[in-house]
């Protein structure tokens, strides 16, 4: 186990590892996304209350779930980089932020589109929507901080501190937004009950959630590879790797 962690920390080893994983992951993920979408769009039955608009769920929920998990991945990478000073963790953290932000963006936009036929409004200040928006802000903060530093090593350290602070705060934020919503006696808008979902609707959803996790990993690895090419352009291992 430790040797594996150790190896992951070495850029040449990681570069080769990522190249191999990407070779397998890319077709798998694309295929799964395609299959899940076709299944969800064409074969799953419509929801008895929302009709066909519910088909958005097959991208909305996976994006939301993975975006949330992504923040923890980023924070763990930050912790590793601060405590064990492993350079690859810096790179990982740098790579997660834009992917997480993009997925959060997808969740928000698909949610907004879904909201129009369902609630008649593009945006409602529901507790969960609001906390997703705040998660989006947290990602944007990390990205903006990274941009603002010229020295990328220092930037990674700063982002690590920020994402750790954010992680401590996320549960509090979620809880507080829930309380905020109940404090104001919410309007009659409610999500559809989650337990009511039928198996014929659930399986494509599970497939899509899996596919989005794969997509997340793929995008992070691609970003990390690009980052390695930039930061290690002087090193001999990279030059021999590229021939």
């Amino acid at each position, binding site marked *: 186990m430790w040797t594996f962690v150790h190896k992951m920390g070495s850029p040449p080893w990681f570069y080769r590892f990522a190249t191999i994983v990407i070779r397998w992951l890319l077709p798998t993920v694309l295929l799964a996304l395609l299959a899940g979408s076709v299944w969800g769009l064409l074969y799953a039955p*419509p929801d008895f209350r929302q009709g*066909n608009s519910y088909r958005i769920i097959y*991208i909305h929920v996976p994006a939301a779930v993975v975006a949330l998990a992504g923040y923890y991945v980023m924070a763990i990478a930050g912790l590793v980089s601060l405590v064990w000073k492993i350079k690859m963790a810096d790179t990982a953290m740098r790579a997660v932020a834009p992917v997480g932000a*993009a997925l959060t963006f997808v969740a928000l*936009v698909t949610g907004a589109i879904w909201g129009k036929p369902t609630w008649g409004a593009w945006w409602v200040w529901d507790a969960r929507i609001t906390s997703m928006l705040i998660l989006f802000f947290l990602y944007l903060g990390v990205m903006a901080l990274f941009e603002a530093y010229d020295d990328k090593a220092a930037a990674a350290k700063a982002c690590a501190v920020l994402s750790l602070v954010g992680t401590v705060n996320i549960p509090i934020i979620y809880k507080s937004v829930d309380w905020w919503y109940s404090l104001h006696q919410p309007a009659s808008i409610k999500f559809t009950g989650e337990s009511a979902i039928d198996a014929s609707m659930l399986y494509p959803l599970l497939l899509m959630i899996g596919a989005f996790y794969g997509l997340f990993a793929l*995008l992070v690895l691609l970003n990390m*590879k*690009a980052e390695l090419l930039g930061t290690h352009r002087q090193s*001999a291992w990279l030059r*021999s790797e590229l021939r």
Partner: protein
Amino acid sequence: MYFESAAAVWHMEGHGPYVWAAYGITALVIILMLVMPLLRSRQMSRAIHTEERRRDLAQGRTSEEGQHAPEA
């Protein structure tokens, strides 16, 4: 297949524009996120190659000779 015709798929009983817009935007974002690092990687490795060639030329070597660079 739940729908009878391609037109029905498109229309989705009035919800078509919403559903397709959502999937379209998502596809766009995914493609962008895939293409950006790939483009960056390609740009980088091309830059490294030209730099390498320039240096090899400056040292009066052919690029074949430089192939056995020692591991760092």
